[in-house]
């Protein structure tokens, strides 16, 4: 009868905790034996080419770079993610271990989900690293605003969906050819789906590559004067999440050992996913181009998003200051320098603007894919008068360098400022035309011309008559103070059309 010290029996682990630990261990194993990490360098290189390099060539505006990142990152990750997911999905059949793993304790769906989750985790890690690099650099360069996260969410949801689609394809058709077919088909569907977009009310806008109204292209003003509208990204994330659920649920539907009890919940998940995806497509079809250049979907639209953002403009120090949105602060010196000659001519004249203030662009969807872009009202308005300025970067077209923007601003806004003060236009008197031409000459602006006949849909201009040019040359030759003094005295009469060419000094 010797007393033996027996160690206490370990307490049984709760079943749920045990399951979680087993799942975590399986996921860890899958993470170590996944092909996705090998593909991440390829994806990162593609991201650098298609997204980072392009974004860095753009002005440091959050919304502009985020929209560019969305489409670029998607293109960079689509082939590696869809292809490798298909490769991993076909692994069991490719290695002839299907029978071997069928007899394991885990149901097939759980094994497959773990493999898919591991591949997706690696893809997500690579993607988020790329986004961190791009957003980090932009945060150091941007003068105002914060990062829009919806484009990041759309690409993340896209990676989930692409990974699920590729994985399902690999599991369904386990062949060496499945992976490249999945990669190329995914690229084809994404890159060329935009061919089908017609106007702002298109169901195809649900494609995650659409980061903004497709017909407009890069727009620096989006999300700067009005909040970034998440309507379309919400529909896209909903579509992609639904698609992911449907595809993952469908992988459990085929008959097989250990999946009998799973088929009903899997069918429910698949149906819910399809419902969500279908609803999202329908929502995208109801989208409309709003006045601020974004897609508004009535069912998910928040009216608070229509209120303009508050900001304190940054202004130059001059007689007529140039004021810009703080997001464009880096453009202020160039814009002020470009407009300084013409603003110096205008300063102190009756009716001259007290400041030049940057304003938001207004958009209107035309027929088909046409969109009209411009100012909402007249260029000069208010008491005291304010000239409303659109930077050339706010209009459709590729983003400009600061030097290019200054040149374009001088040629577009300069004559517009002169015309708004002098009253030059199609119905202007010859004296108004001559004074406008003289002021443009002395400010180094392009010479104004008369609108000519429309020939084969191309508007033409004709040079000013010789008498007007002669009077303009005479007026421009005056010393600047004398010219200014004459304008102060006679501008009201000039605008009323009561001055003739002969009366010009």
């Amino acid at each position: 009868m010797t007393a033996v010290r027996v160690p206490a029996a370990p307490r049984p682990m709760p079943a749920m905790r045990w399951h979680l630990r087993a799942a975590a261990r399986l996921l860890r194993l899958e993470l170590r034996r996944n092909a996705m990490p090998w593909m991440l360098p390829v994806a990162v290189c593609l991201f650098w080419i298609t997204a980072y390099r392009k974004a860095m060539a753009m002005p440091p505006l959050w919304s502009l770079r985020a929209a560019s990142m969305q489409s670029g990152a998607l293109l960079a990750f689509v082939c590696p993610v869809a292809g490798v997911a298909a490769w991993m999905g076909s692994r069991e059949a490719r290695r002839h271990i299907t029978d071997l793993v069928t007899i394991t304790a885990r149901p097939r769906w759980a094994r497959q989900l773990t493999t898919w989750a591991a591949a997706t985790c690696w893809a997500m890690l690579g993607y988020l690293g790329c986004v961190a690099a791009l957003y980090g650099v932009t945060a150091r360069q941007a003068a105002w605003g914060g990062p829009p996260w919806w484009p990041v969410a759309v690409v993340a949801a896209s990676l989930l969906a692409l990974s699920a689609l590729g994985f399902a394809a690999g599991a369904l058709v386990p062949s060496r050819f499945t992976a490249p077919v999945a990669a190329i088909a995914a690229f084809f569907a994404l890159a060329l789906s935009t061919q089908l977009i017609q106007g702002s009310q298109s169901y195809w806008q649900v494609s995650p590559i659409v980061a903004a109204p497709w017909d407009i292209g890069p727009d620096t003003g989006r999300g700067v004067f009005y909040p970034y509208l998440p309507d379309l990204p919400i529909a896209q994330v909903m579509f992609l999440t639904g698609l992911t659920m449907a595809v993952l649920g469908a992988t459990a539907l085929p008959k097989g050992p250990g999946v009998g009890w799973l088929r009903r919940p899997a069918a429910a998940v698949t149906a819910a996913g399809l419902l969500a995806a279908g609803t999202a497509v329908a929502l995208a079809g109801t989208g409309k181009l709003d006045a601020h250049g974004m897609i508004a979907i009535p069912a998910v639209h928040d009216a608070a998003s229509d209120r303009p953002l508050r900001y304190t403009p940054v202004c130059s120090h001059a007689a007529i200051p140039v004021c810009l949105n703080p997001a464009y602060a880096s453009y202020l010196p160039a814009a002020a320098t470009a407009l300084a000659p013409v603003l110096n001519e205008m300063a102190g004249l009756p009716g001259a603007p007290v400041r030049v203030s940057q304003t938001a662009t207004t958009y209107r969807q035309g027929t088909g894919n046409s969109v009209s872009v411009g100012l909402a009202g007249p260029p000069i308005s208010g008491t005291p008068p304010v000239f409303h300025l659109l930077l050339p970067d706010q209009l459709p077209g590729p983003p400009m360098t600061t030097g290019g923007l200054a040149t374009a601003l001088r040629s577009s806004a300069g004559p517009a400022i002169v015309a708004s003060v002098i009253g030059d236009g199609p119905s202007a008197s010859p004296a108004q035309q001559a004074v406008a031409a003289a002021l443009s000459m002395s400010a180094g602006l392009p010479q104004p011309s008369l609108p000519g006949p429309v020939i084969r849909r191309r508007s033409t201009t004709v040079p000013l008559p010789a008498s007007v040019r002669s009077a303009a040359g005479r007026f421009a030759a005056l010393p600047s103070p004398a010219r200014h003094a004459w304008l102060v005295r006679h501008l009201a009469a000039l605008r009323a059309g009561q001055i003739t060419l002969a009366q010009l000094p």
Partner: protein
Amino acid sequence: MTAGTAREVPGAAAADRRAWPAWPPRAGTRLLRLHAISRRVPAAIAAIAACAIGLRIALIGHWDSYGALQLPLVFEAGSAAAVTITTASPLGEPERVTGRRLPFLRLATTLTLTAAAAGALTAAGTGAHLAGGTLDVLRNVAGMTGIGLLCAAVLGGGLAWVGPTGYLVVGAYGLYTQWHGPALTTPWIWPARPPHDAGAAICATLVFTIGIVITSVRGARDPVGE
């Protein structure tokens, strides 16, 4: 006894070498057939044919400038991926050790399939507006196949498709930058260059040559069990 045996060995080897030219032609054909089957050449030919048919069907549709330029590239990448997958060997080390004619078989397989891919895609574009024309197809298919062959040497035949599909994105983006800068004008991104561009043709040929030499001589890097 030992010396006599030793003397007989060179004689037997010489007899074996003499027997080489007298190898029956049917055996050669059989070897070719077996090699092709082991490399899934019939499936690759079917994939190339599917790409050609897909291109033909796609060309019937109306595409804008981007689409018209990028469309052939997608199918060229598909064909190149199909060619590169045939570098994967299911036999591995035993075949490398015993197969004396293996480099020639690999070379013949790759060249034949590349020519078939270029020919099939060109034929698919006959009578339709195929952006870039025959020269473009030939250059792009050869170049992307070369990239795939290099990937096969590094990653293995099974994952060799990563090269053509990754380069597809680069090429399509290069074409896109012709409208929206900053433009990619390096000849190493040959799909973005005109069909008659000598630099682009040289780059594509160089990549194809290096790829085919490496995979013919050394074969793809294939892990056992795949």
